[in-house]
């Protein structure tokens, strides 16, 4: 077993010294948060969990098609790394994006409707699971090409700096993405121009079915070393720890600390996608069962709240019922929503249909909705 794996599989609840000597904040205490806030965290994470479970169910009965990547087990990261942001800050991510969209402020209904491929979906049914967008909420999309979101994140951060605003861009990626050239190029540009970007690796230890230790000679935390970008590790199964860490980091970046690299340690409780079993070829059932038992972010918060008498079993049950109801409503909203009008096929390809010339070449000019209709 190499160093990387040893590092990666050891969950660290608190910050510590890392490879390049930068430190991550830590030591957050339950007492730093109000009861209401803690309840809000719990409710949000429950919503993420139930939302993904509903999506899984809908996928199983054919309501959702294509790729569908669930975030179950990673809810604390979704919430804690996004919740501290302002609405005008940006989040951009990869394709495991449902709960992050919810965390950035999208309503469950439109997100579920997007998964269902409906006209009321957040991307009007044109994006699907991998491409949830919420421009208004600063959720700049799920992106399907591993690592491709990183240069774009640098671009948004560049825009903030260009305009002189204090907006921050948070870029999520999976652990596999750090091996893309885009990672190097983006971190380097962010560093040389001191861009307000936070690059967060959700290190769930497997890029699809390949353990990170098999594709990196050094631990994750060292991967940002050569760019002069401060690196941090956070236990992203612990919402209290994660939220506090991110809140602090965002403030620093907003004040001009420049780009940051964060390894958010987490674990995916489900398969890579709907076609990947929870356990089997690349990870054992024992491993998964053990991690689910030890590291369920919802259980971790629940235990701490119960211990501190900040929440009762009844309160939690009531909260869960409420969340389930909300998710059911989202599913109903999606189910009842109309399919996109066939005429929508041609909308949103171009923002500007030029006055002259032909833009579409499929010979279907005369058809309803075709922007070339009647032009030539």
């Amino acid at each position: 077993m190499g160093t990387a794996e040893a590092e990666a599989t050891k969950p660290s609840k608190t910050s510590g010294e890392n490879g390049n000597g930068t430190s991550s904040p830590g030591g957050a205490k339950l007492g730093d948060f109000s009861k209401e806030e803690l309840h809000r965290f719990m409710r949000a994470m429950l919503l993420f969990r139930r939302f993904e479970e509903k999506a899984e169910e809908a996928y199983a009965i054919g309501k959702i098609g294509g790729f569908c990547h669930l975030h179950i087990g990673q809810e604390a990261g979704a919430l804690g790394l996004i919740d501290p942001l302002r609405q005008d800050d940006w989040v951009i991510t990869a394709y495991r994006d449902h709960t992050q969209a919810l965390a950035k402020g999208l309503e469950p209904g439109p997100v579920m409707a997007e998964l269902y491929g409906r006209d009321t979906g957040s991307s009007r049914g044109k994006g699907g699971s991998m491409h949830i967008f919420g421009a208004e909420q600063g959720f700049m999309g799920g992106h399907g090409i591993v690592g491709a979101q990183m240069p774009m994140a640098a671009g948004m951060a560049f825009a903030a700096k260009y305009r002189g605003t204090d907006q921050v861009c948070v870029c999520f990626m999976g652990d596999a993405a750090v091996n893309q050239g885009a990672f190097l190029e983006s971190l380097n540009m962010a560093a040389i121009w001191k861009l307000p970007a936070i690059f967060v690796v959700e290190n769930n230890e497997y890029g699809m079915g390949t353990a990170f230790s098999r594709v990196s000679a050094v631990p994750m935390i060292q991967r940002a070393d050569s760019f002069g970008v401060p690196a941090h590790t956070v236990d992203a199964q612990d919402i209290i720890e994660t939220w506090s860490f991110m809140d602090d980091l965002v403030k620093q970046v907003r004040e001009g600390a420049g780009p940051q690299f964060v390894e958010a340690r987490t674990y995916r409780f489900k398969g890579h996608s709907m076609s990947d079993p929870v356990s089997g070829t690349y990870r054992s059932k024992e491993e998964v069962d053990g991690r689910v038992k030890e590291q369920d972010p919802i259980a971790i918060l629940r235990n701490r709240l119960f211990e501190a008498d900040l929440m009762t079993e009844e309160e939690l049950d009531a909260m869960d019922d409420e969340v389930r109801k909300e998710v059911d409503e989202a599913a109903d909203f999606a189910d009842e929503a109309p399919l996109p009008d066939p005429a929508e096929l041609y909308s949103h390809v171009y923002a500007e249909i030029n006055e002259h010339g032909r833009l579409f070449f499929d010979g279907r000019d005369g058809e309803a909705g075709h922007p070339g209709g009647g032009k030539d």
Partner: protein
Amino acid sequence: MAVITYREALNQALAEEMERDDSVFLMGEEVAEYDGAYKVSKGLLDQFGERRVVDSPISELGFAGLGVGAAMVGLRPIIEFMTFNFSILALDQVLNSAAKMLYMSGGQISCPMVFRGPTGAALQLSAQHSQACEIWYVHAPGIKVVTPATPADAKGLLKASIRDNDPVAFMEGELLYNLKGEVPDPDDGDFIIPLGVADLKREGEHISIITHGKMVHVALQAASKLEKDGIEADVLDLRTLRPLDVDAILATVRKTNRAVYLEEGWPWGGVGSQIVSIIQDEAFDDLDAPVVRVTQADVPMPYAKNLEQIAKPSVDRVIAACNRVLYRNS
């Protein structure tokens, strides 16, 4: 009217648009302190400062994607590729991100930006630096492709491209930068050439040579030679490949009944393939002969001067193609 070079025309367009709109910035390799690898951005750093004229690391994927991200949140980046050969590294950002962003976001997020730089061969730069990249861009819905051939077109079309609300691949020609031509004086007001309007660079009645970009000049030379033979050719410069001025294509074909498509790229799935498809589809009953294409030889660009010469589309090959289409022996 002033006679300036293609390079100066581009420079004017950049300066005018940056002056006009603060959200426009220029990024690329060597664009700032070096004044541009081909000096297109000469003086812009002094005029606009390093905030808006930004030297990038050699990271084509990275800075192209940075431009996409900046455009997603409302800036109007101009991303300069030293040549479009290097843009192949960035194609993921252009095709998968910029071109599809608006669609996959359901209309929420557009990418108003320009990718620009020279495309095609120069002189003896051999295989990796001498390729026409138009087709890789024009293939994808969501992006627009502009290929100016003259200084005036370069200026008017670049200004229109910068103001366009979609990603535009603006493809210049290394061998065109020194080309001189008349361009309306900046004092006479904004000179804009709308996208999607082809330009009949020469009028004739016997045959249509349809082309774009640098090849316009090869077509014009061929037309001059044909004229001595009593053959009058229409030379239609498409100017923009997407949007495409189909009306102009059909009009010239309906006039001459014969067409040759000339392009710098390779034949398989080339720009000409699409043009020929349109012609046979929409002007079938106007054709008196098959439409013939003249392209680069279907090989990587060789280095040796003589080989390069025969690999490129030449005046002679255009004339031969015209004769073939005219059913003339020569």
